[in-house]
């Protein structure tokens, strides 16, 4: 099968659950990855930096999407877990001299443990109570970062080392890009597969109707806590990749605004969509560039002078984040992934789309 049929004609369970419906979609994905491998030859360092950002933000956003989109729990403290991963990876390398490439998954596991601790209340709470509990987790962890000198370096922050593998130092955008690309592919394939397993379906059942799920024999407390741990694992991996990209982790970086940015990625990308998380991350990374470009375009004009655009670009970015969340919730609640599906559906039935 090279093209998808104009309708749902799956004859087996296996065919229904497949990630790649046609041969062409698999080819397109492989081609896309191969093309991305050549990106460092074509793109400049700045553009590569943006792609790297999209990569690790996408991983962390995917974690949040597993929690919010697939399990129906909410977290306003995702950036704190991202920060745990960043500091833990740097700490493990410096203290125990573990190779950095191993530190990254270990940091993910460490974040998962922290997530478990804060996820324990989540086993009993849902909806707004959970939102408030994770908000508290955000402030408590932020306070811990500022206080724990041994772990985070306190106010001065912590330096990190570059990833080293087979004698190659991945300390520039051109080389680090491949590290992030590899991690992104692994994490996304893992998430896509998770959703096809028994555990993944249990998470979705908890989201759709938790009472029925419990009646069906799904242990609610177990799966809610598990979902928290998985989400923190992804956040930790993303945070570790962030730490070894910038070579410096500052305590102030993981504030509530950053957490809200992750929520925005998930909403904009599409709740409950694996690829949507990546789309949302791309949107949120590129939007500040768009705002900047707009401000540059207007620079010097009367609009710029009356509104003081140049001096307050950071506020404009924050406003754009808030506005994006609200506009997407009101006008496109299913996010970019849904729009993409509609475009695909249009072409699937092309001449007879109505």
């Amino acid at each position: 099968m090279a093209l998808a049929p104009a309708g749902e004609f799956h004859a087996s369970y296996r065919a229904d659950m497949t990630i790649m419906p046609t041969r062409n979609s698999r080819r397109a994905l492989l081609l896309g990855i191969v093309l991305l491998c050549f990106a460092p030859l074509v793109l400049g360092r700045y553009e590569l930096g943006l792609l790297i950002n999209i990569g690790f933000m996408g991983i962390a956003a995917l974690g949040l999407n597993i929690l919010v989109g697939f399990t129906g729990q909410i977290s306003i403290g995702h950036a704190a877990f991202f920060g745990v991963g960043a500091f833990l990876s740097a700490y493990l390398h410096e203290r125990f001299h573990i190779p950095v490439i191993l530190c990254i998954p270990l940091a993910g596991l460490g974040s998962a443990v922290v997530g478990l601790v804060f996820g324990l209340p989540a086993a009993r709470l849902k909806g707004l109570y959970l939102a408030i509990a994770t908000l508290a987790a955000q402030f408590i962890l932020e306070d811990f970062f500022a206080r724990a000198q041994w772990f985070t370096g306190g106010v001065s922050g912590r330096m990190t080392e570059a990833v080293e593998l087979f004698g190659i130092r991945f300390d520039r955008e051109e080389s680090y890009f491949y590290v992030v690309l590899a991690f992104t592919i692994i994490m996304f394939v893992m998430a896509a597969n998770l959703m096809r397993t028994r555990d993944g379906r249990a998470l979705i059942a908890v989201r759709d109707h938790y009472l029925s799920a419990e009646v069906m024999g799904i242990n609610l407390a177990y799966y809610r806590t598990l979902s928290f741990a998985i989400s923190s694992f992804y956040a930790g991996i993303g945070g570790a990749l962030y730490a070894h990209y910038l070579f410096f982790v500052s305590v102030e970086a993981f504030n509530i605004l950053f957490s809200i940015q992750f929520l925005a990625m998930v909403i904009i990308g599409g709740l409950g969509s694996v690829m949507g998380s990546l789309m949302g991350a791309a949107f949120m990374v590129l939007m500040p560039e768009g705002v900047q470009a707009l401000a540059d375009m207007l620079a010097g004009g009367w609009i710029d002078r009356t509104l003081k655009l140049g001096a307050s670009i950071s506020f404009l970015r924050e406003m754009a984040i808030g506005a994006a969340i609200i506009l997407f919730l009101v006008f496109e609640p299913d996010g970019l992934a849904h729009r993409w599906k509609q475009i695909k559906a249009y072409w699937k039935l092309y001449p007879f789309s109505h």
Partner: protein
Amino acid sequence: METGLLFQLVLNGLIVGALYGVVAMSFVLIYKASQVVNFAQGEFMLIGAWACWWLLTYWQLPFWIGFPVALAFMTVFGVVLQVTVLRPLIGEPVISVIMATVGLSIFFQALMKWMFGVFAQPFPAIFPVERIRIMGLEVQSVYLLSIALSLMIMLGFWWFFNFSKHGLAMRATAFDQQVAQSLGISVPQVFAMSWAISAVVSAVAGVVVGVVSGVSSGLSFYGIKVFPAVILGGLDSVVGAMLGGIIVGLLENLAQYVDSQWLNWGNMTNIAPFYALIIILLIKPYGLFGTKNIERV
């Protein structure tokens, strides 16, 4: 042990706590009437305080004109916000609504920073600042005024919910929307009204804080401190919100006292309420006065 310091901190706790209580009450008002958890409550304070400040300094209006104009603006603002952002989200999952108010919060916080800058601006002197001695403690007259105002707002709420037609309509809507509608209550109107009242009351609290310690973006942090207060008191209890606010105010200042005397950790003022919040959620998630949500399968 310094008993003088302790008394001073307890008094501070009561004053700040009463203000938390007022904001928490306006938070509970929205939650009761329309089941929306408003993460932008602190921004209501911020916007109200900046609006009043702007009228008083830029337009040089006297306080007794500028203040009501600012409150009138907040009424319109609350209604417009409810109609444009929250009304389309009716029927969406709780998570979407929470995230919409989170979006509103960061949007308005940034907007206020853009319009008025990041530095704290003092209010023009409205009331003579005097120090009054009560039982050997020095208290600024503005603080006494703020406590009196908080008490007045509380009384106002009590009257509103128990005796006024609109307040009873609001309680009926909170109890059961369908039944309320069949009795001729306009539910959309009640929703809009609850947002308007909440915005106005928060703005009053914002102006009070602004008069005492200047207007700055730090005001929006009150909106976050509201959560420990309302969780402690129970999310749908007006009395609980007030009491929770006072307890959180006291807790903050006592934590600061313990910290300054023995622990020396620093920053306990801001973090202690959140530890308390987690503990309450673990042992008594519906708070002191909240309705227990019993689910039977």
